[in-house]
C-alpha cells in the first residue's frame, strides 16, 4: 500500500420509464458518480525517473537508507525530524547514491495530488408504436465528465528551488449520441416467414476541453491551489477545445423461417471528422446466415443433441482511430497543423509547422469471415461453441516514417497503407458434472489461437521491410516479429559477453554467418520470429452444495515470448552504480566461475539499453483470477426476517500468477519491446492489485 493514496466514490442512479399512451413510451436513465482520489506520482510510460516511487523501490540498491538517523544519548538510533517533518535521506548522509537524487518516498509524503471526477451519464428515449409491428424511436445519450486535478510539489520535496509549485488542471468531456430508428417487424400472415427491417440515422459528437495552469512560490506550503502561488516568472495558464464527430445512416434486414433458417443483411454509411471533406464517408455492411439443425424433423430422434446451430457471416467494418483522442493532432490528422509562440523582448510572434497531415486519409476497413457452430449435448453435460475466423484489415491507419531528410516536423505522416490478416479459432466449452437437487458442479474452458500475417506494405518499403530496434515488419511476417541482436553466451577465457554477427565484405555481401564477437557494435540484428502465444484462454469450475457455493476462475497463455526489460535493468554489468541487482548477477563470470551464461561485471556499457535476445523469456502464465466462497441462508429462515434471500460471501481477485520469472506479468502486454518500452509492466509501475472482498447480499 502506498501511503497518501485514497479513493472515495459516490454514485446514484435513476431509471424511469413512462407509458404515456398505448402507442407512446418515454424512457429516462440517469447515472451520476463522484470520486475523489489521491494517487502517488508515477508514470508507467516513463522509465528511470528517480521521482517515481515504484522505480525507486524496485531499482535502487537496498543498501541506501530511507531516513536520516542519529544516535540518542543511549546510543540508540532515531529518525531525525525538523519542524515536525521527518528528514528523509536525499544524499545528505554519507551514503552517496550515484544515480538517485532526491527521495521519491519523501516526495510522496510531502507532495499532494488529488483527482476529483464528476460523471453524469443520461439517456432519454421516445418510442412510438403507431401501428402493429412498427417502432419509431429517438434516443439521446449524453455523457458529461468533469475532472479536476491538483498537484502540489512541496518546497520540502522536489520543488525546493521554486519554493513549492502547484499545477491545476480541469478537463471537461461532453459527448452526445443521437439515434433515430424506424423498425418494422412482421410475420407474413399464414406463413412462417418473419421479417424485421430497420433504418436510421446516428450521430456522435464529442467535445474535449482542457484548462490547465501552474505557478510556484507557495505562501502556505500545504495549499495546492493557484491562488496560493505567488510566483511571477513561471506563471502559466492555457486552455483548448477539440471536437470529434461521426455520423451515419444505417439499414438492416433480418429474416427467419420457422425459427430454423436465419438470414440477415446490413448496410451503413458513416462519416468521420478525422478525415478531409471528400474522404470522410465510408460504406460498411454485413451478411449472415444460420441454420438451427435441431429444428429439423430428422433431428427429433437424436436425443443426445439438445441444440445444434451452424452459422456463417461476413462483415465489413470501419476504423477511424489513429493515435488516440488525447493529443490534438489526432483530431485533425488530415490537415497540416501549426503552432506559435511570442517573444516579449522583441514583440514578435513566431510560427512553425508542427504536424504534416494527409488530406487523402480515410477509413481503415476490416473484412471478417466467421464460421462456427453452437451446441448443447447430453442434457447440459457438454455445451459450447466453436468458431473459426479470418479477418483481413486493409488500408491500415498508420504513422508512416518518411525520410528525415524531407524535414517533416514529426518524421511521420498518417497514411492508409498495407493489409494484414488475422486467422484464428476459438473454442468455448462448459458443462455440468453433478446436478442434483442439493449439489451442482459445473466447469468451463476456453481456448483461443490466432496468427497474424502482413499481406502487403507500402509500395515504398523495400523487400527487407521496416526495421526497428527490436521488431521488423515485412510481407509474410507478422506485426509481432522480432528483429534482435543475439547473445552467444560468455567467453569462458575472458568472461566477456559474446554476440552473433554476419561477416560482410566491403560491398556489404554476407560472407560468413553466425560468427561470434565481443564487440557489440558489430552484432547483427536477426529476424527471430513472432512472440505471440500459441494458445491462450481460461478455465474454471464452480460447485454449490447445501447452500454453500465455491468457484474458481483461471486464465493462461502458452507458447509465446516476452521481452523482460526490467530484468535487463537489474542485470547491469556494474555500469549503473547504486542500482539494484537481480540475484542472477551472483552467477556472473569470475576467474573461478567460468562455466556460466552471465558475463563478468566489468562496467561494460556496450549493450546499455539495446534489445538482446538474452532478455527474452517465455510468456507462459497461469493466473488465479478469482476464488469465491459463499453461503446462502435457507429461504425458510430468512423469510421470518422479511427477506427473500440472504447470502454471505468472501471473494479474492487476482490471487496469484505463475510465470517463467518472478515479477514478470505477461498479462499486461504481448511483450514485444525493449529495455524502455513495450515490456509491459515495467519497473515504473506496480503489479496487478490483489483484491479480497467480503460481503452480504440481501434481497427484500
Amino acid at each position, binding site marked *: 500500500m502506498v501511503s497518501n493514496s485514497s479513493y472515495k466514490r459516490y454514485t446514484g442512479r435513476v431509471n424511469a420509464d413512462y407509458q404515456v399512451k398505448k402507442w407512446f413510451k418515454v424512457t429516462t436513465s440517469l447515472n451520476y458518480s463522484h470520486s475523489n482520489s489521491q494517487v502517488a506520482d508515477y508514470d508507467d510510460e516513463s522509465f528511470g525517473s528517480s521521482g517515481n516511487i515504484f522505480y525507486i523501490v524496485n531499482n535502487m540498491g537496498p543498501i541506501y537508507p530511507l531516513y536520516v538517523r542519529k544516535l540518542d544519548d543511549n546510543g540508540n538510533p532515531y529518525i531525525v525530524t525538523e519542524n515536525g517533518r521527518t528528514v528523509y535521506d536525499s544524499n545528505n548522509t554519507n551514503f552517496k547514491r550515484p544515480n538517485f537524487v532526491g527521495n521519491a518516498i519523501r516526495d510522496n509524503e510531502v507532495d499532494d495530488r488529488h483527482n476529483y471526477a464528476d460523471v453524469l451519464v443520461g439517456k432519454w428515449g421516445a418510442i412510438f408504436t403507431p401501428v402493429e409491428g412498427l417502432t419509431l424511436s429517438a434516443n439521446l445519450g449524453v455523457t458529461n465528465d468533469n475532472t479536476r486535478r491538483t498537484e502540489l510539489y512541496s518546497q520540502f520535496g522536489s520543488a525546493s528551488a521554486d519554493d513549492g509549485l502547484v499545477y491545476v488542471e480541469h478537463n471537461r468531456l461532453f459527448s452526445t449520441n443521437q439515434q433515430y430508428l424506424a423498425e418494422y417487424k412482421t410475420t407474413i400472415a399464414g406463413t412462417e416467414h418473419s421479417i424485421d427491417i430497420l433504418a436510421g440515422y446516428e450521430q456522435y459528437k464529442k467535445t474535449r476541453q482542457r484548462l490547465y495552469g501552474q505557478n510556484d512560490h507557495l505562501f502556505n506550503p500545504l495549499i495546492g491551489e493557484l491562488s496560493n502561488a505567488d510566483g511571477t516568472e513561471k506563471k502559466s495558464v492555457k486552455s483548448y477545445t477539440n471536437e470529434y464527430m461521426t455520423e451515419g445512416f444505417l439499414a438492416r434486414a433480418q429474416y427467419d423461417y420457422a425459427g430454423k433458417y436465419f438470414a440477415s443483411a446490413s448496410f451503413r454509411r458513416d462519416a468521420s471528422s478525422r478525415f478531409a471533406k471528400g474522404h470522410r464517408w465510408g460504406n460498411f455492411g454485413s451478411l449472415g446466415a444460420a441454420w438451427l439443425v435441431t429444428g429439423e424433423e430428422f433431428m427429433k430422434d437424436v436425443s443426445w443433441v439438445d441444440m445444434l446451430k451452424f452459422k456463417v457471416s461476413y462483415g465489413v467494418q470501419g476504423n477511424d482511430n489513429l493515435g488516440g483522442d488525447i493529443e490534438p493532432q489526432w483530431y485533425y490528422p488530415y490537415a497540416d497543423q501549426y503552432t506559435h509562440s511570442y517573444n516579449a523582448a*522583441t514583440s514578435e510572434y513566431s510560427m*512553425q509547422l508542427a504536424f504534416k497531415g494527409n488530406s487523402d486519409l480515410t477509413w481503415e476497413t476490416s473484412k471478417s469471415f466467421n464460421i462456427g457452430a453452437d451446441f448443447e449435448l447430453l442434457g447440459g453435460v457438454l455445451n459450447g461453441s466453436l468458431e473459426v475466423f479470418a479477418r483481413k484489415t486493409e488500408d491500415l491507419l498508420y504513422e508512416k*516514417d518518411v*525520410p528525415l531528410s524531407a524535414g517533416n516536423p514529426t518524421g511521420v505522416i498518417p497514411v492508409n497503407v498495407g493489409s494484414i490478416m488475422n486467422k484464428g479459432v476459438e473454442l468455448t466449452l462448459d458443462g455440468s458434472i453433478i446436478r442434483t437437487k442439493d449439489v451442482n458442479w459445473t466447469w468451463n474452458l476456453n481456448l483461443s489461437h490466432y496468427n497474424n500475417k502482413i499481406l502487403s506494405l507500402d509500395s515504398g518499403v523495400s523487400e527487407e521491410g521496416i526495421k526497428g530496434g527490436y521488431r521488423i515488419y515485412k510481407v509474410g511476417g507478422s506485426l509481432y516479429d522480432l528483429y534482435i541482436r543475439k547473445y552467444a553466451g560468455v567467453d569462458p577465457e575472458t568472461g566477456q559477453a559474446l554476440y552473433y554477427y554476419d561477416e560482410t565484405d566491403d560491398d556489404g555481401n554476407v560472407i560468413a554467418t553466425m560468427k561470434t564477437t565481443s564487440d557489440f557494435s*558489430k552484432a547483427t540484428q536477426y529476424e527471430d520470429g513472432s512472440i505471440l502465444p500459441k494458445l491462450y484462454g481460461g478455465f474454471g469450475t464452480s460447485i454449490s452444495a447445501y447452500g454453500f457455493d465455491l468457484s474458481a476462475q483461471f486464465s493462461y497463455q502458452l507458447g509465446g515470448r516476452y521481452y523482460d526489460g526490467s530484468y535487463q535493468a537489474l542485470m547491469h554489468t556494474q555500469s549503473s552504480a547504486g542500482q539494484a541487482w537481480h540475484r542472477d548477477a551472483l552467477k556472473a563470470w569470475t576467474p573461478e566461475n567460468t562455466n556460466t551464461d552471465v558475463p563478468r561485471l566489468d562496467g561494460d*556499457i556496450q549493450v546499455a539499453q539495446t534489445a538482446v535476445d538474452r532478455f527474452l523469456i517465455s510468456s507462459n502464465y497461469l493466473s488465479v483470477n478469482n476464488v469465491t466462497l459463499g453461503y446462502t441462508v435457507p429461504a425458510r429462515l430468512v423469510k421470518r426476517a422479511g427477506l427473500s434471500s440472504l447470502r454471505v460471501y468472501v471473494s479474492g481477485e487476482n490471487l496469484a500468477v505463475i510465470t517463467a520469472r518472478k515479477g514478470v506479468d505477461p498479462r499486461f502486454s504481448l511483450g514485444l519491446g525493449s529495455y524502455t518500452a513495450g515490456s509491459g509492466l515495467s519497473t515504473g509501475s506496480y503489479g496487478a492489485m490483489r483484491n479480497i472482498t467480503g460481503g452480504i447480499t440481501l434481497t427484500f
Partner: protein
Amino acid sequence: MKLNKIYLTLAAGLAFTACSDIDEIVPQSDRMLESQVKETNTIVPSRAEASFTGMFTSIGKPYAANYETPDDFAFLVMAFCNDLEGADALMPDSGYNWFSVCGEYSSRNANYRNPYIRYRTPYKLIADVNTFVSGFPEDVSDENSIRLIAQARALRAFAYMQLVPAFQFVTNLDGPAVPLVTPETEDFTHNPRAAVRDIYTLVIEDLNYAVEKLEGFKRSSKMYIDQTVAYGLRARANLDLGNYDDAAADAARVIAQYTPASIAEVSKPSFMSIDEHNWVWGYDMTAALTLKKTDATPSSWLRSFSGDSYSAACQCYVSINKLLWNKIPATDIRKQWWVDEGLHSTLIEGLTWKGKGDIANLTLNNEKEPFLPYTNVKFGCLTIGTTTNDEDFPLMRVEEMILVRAEGLAKSGKEAEAAQLLSDFVTTYRDPQYSVNGRGLSLADEIWFQRRVELWGEGFGIYDIKRLGKPPVRFHGTPESTNFAPAFRFNMAADDGWLLMRFPQTELDTNFSIEDNNNGSLPVMDQNPTLRDGVTD
C-alpha cells in the same frame, strides 16, 4: 397531460440538434490548420511574419523534435554533443547524464534518439527554409522580401554546415556527405548522399546571396542574420573548404563591427545574454519557450548555476579535461573559467546562491550539489539559482572570428600578421602576459589551442578536431592523466571511421539511396593510450 408535452418538446429538440455540420469542426487550441492561418493573416497581416521568425526560434527550441526529453533542444543540442564527443568537455558517467552516448560514442547506434535529433534538426530547418523561399514568386523584387529570403538562405547554409561535418570529414571534398535537399527536390526516397563539395557549393551560393542582399540591412534583434553574420558564416565555410584567404577576409568584416569581451567582463560567469556586445549572432531563449521545458535547455546542462538543472541538482556538471586546463597559464583569466581541483575559481568568489556563499561546495537539497573538479563557471545564469533557464546562447562571437582570421592568415602564408592578431587579442582581452610562442607550439596548433579554450562549450570541439585532421586525445595513458570517467576514457585515431555519424534507421529504411558509414568500431576503455594531439602533450 403535462409530461406528455414535455417529452414531445424533447423529441423535437433531438431532431433539431441532429442538423449540426461535420464540416465545421476546427481546433480551438494552440494548433491551427492552414485555413485558420490564412484567416489570421487576413485579419492581422503582420502575423504572416511569424513563419519567418519561427525558423530562428527553431534553432534552440526545447522539445523541438517532440521527444519531450531533456536532450531535445535542436541545434543547441547538436552544439553540446560536438563538445562532448571531443576531447575537452566531459560529464560524469551517471544515470542522469543523458549525453553519455556522446561520451562513450554509442551515438552511432541507428536506433538511438540522440543521433536522430541531430540528423532531423537541420533537415527540419532546411525544409522550413525551402518552403519559405518557395513561397515567393521567382521574380520577387521588393527589398523587404529579398532580405527575408537572404536570411532564410543563410540559415539553410548554417544548417548544412552543422550537418555535413558530422557525416564526412569536410577535407574529403569528394566524399559522400548527406542528401542534398533544395526546393527542387522531389524524390526524398531516392536521394543519395551528395559529395561534400556539392553541398558546400550550395552553402557558398546561399551565403554569397545573403552577403550581397543584406547590404545596409539593420536587424531588429541579434537573433536574426545581417550582413555581418553572413560574412561570419561564410568565413566558417571558407575555413572548412581550406579557402584561407577568403576566410581571413570574411572574418575581417565581422571583426570590424564588434569588440571582444574585456578581461573584466569575462572575470565573472557570463556568455548568457544576447545583449553582450561581443556576440555577433545568438539564440534568444525566452521564458515562454522554456516554461515547463526547463530541463531541455543549455542552462539545465552546460551552465552550473541553475536551480532547475540536471547539472547542479544531479551533480552532472560539465567539466574541462584537465589535460587542457593544465596548459592554460595562471595569468590567463580563462584559467578561472573552470574551478580547479580544490573547486576554487576567482570567477565565483563573493557570489551567493539563495543568500549562501561558497557556491562551489554548497549543497541545497534537490537543487544544488557541490561542484566537481574542473566544473565550468564560464557560462553564467542571469540569476544564480534561476528556475526559468532562459539564458541565451551564443551562435557566433567576435572572438571566434578573430581566431578564424588568424587561422586564415596563418595558413595563407601571412604568419606574422596572424601572430600579431592573435597576440593583440589574447594580450588585451585574456592574458596580459601572453606570448604566441610561449608554449612552443606551431602557430596553427597555438590557434587551435586558443579555439579550444576560448570556444569551449560552444559547439566546436569535435568539428575542429575533424576539420584539422587531429586525433581526439582524452587521456595520456593513465587513469590519473584525465578526469574523463573510465567509460569515456580513450583516444581515437584522426582517421577513425567511428568519428563519422551513422544514419538513423528511419532514413535508412525510407531513403533507399543511402549508403551508411561503416568504418571503425565503438571505442573501448583506454584504447590508443600513446596517441597525442600536439597541443596537450
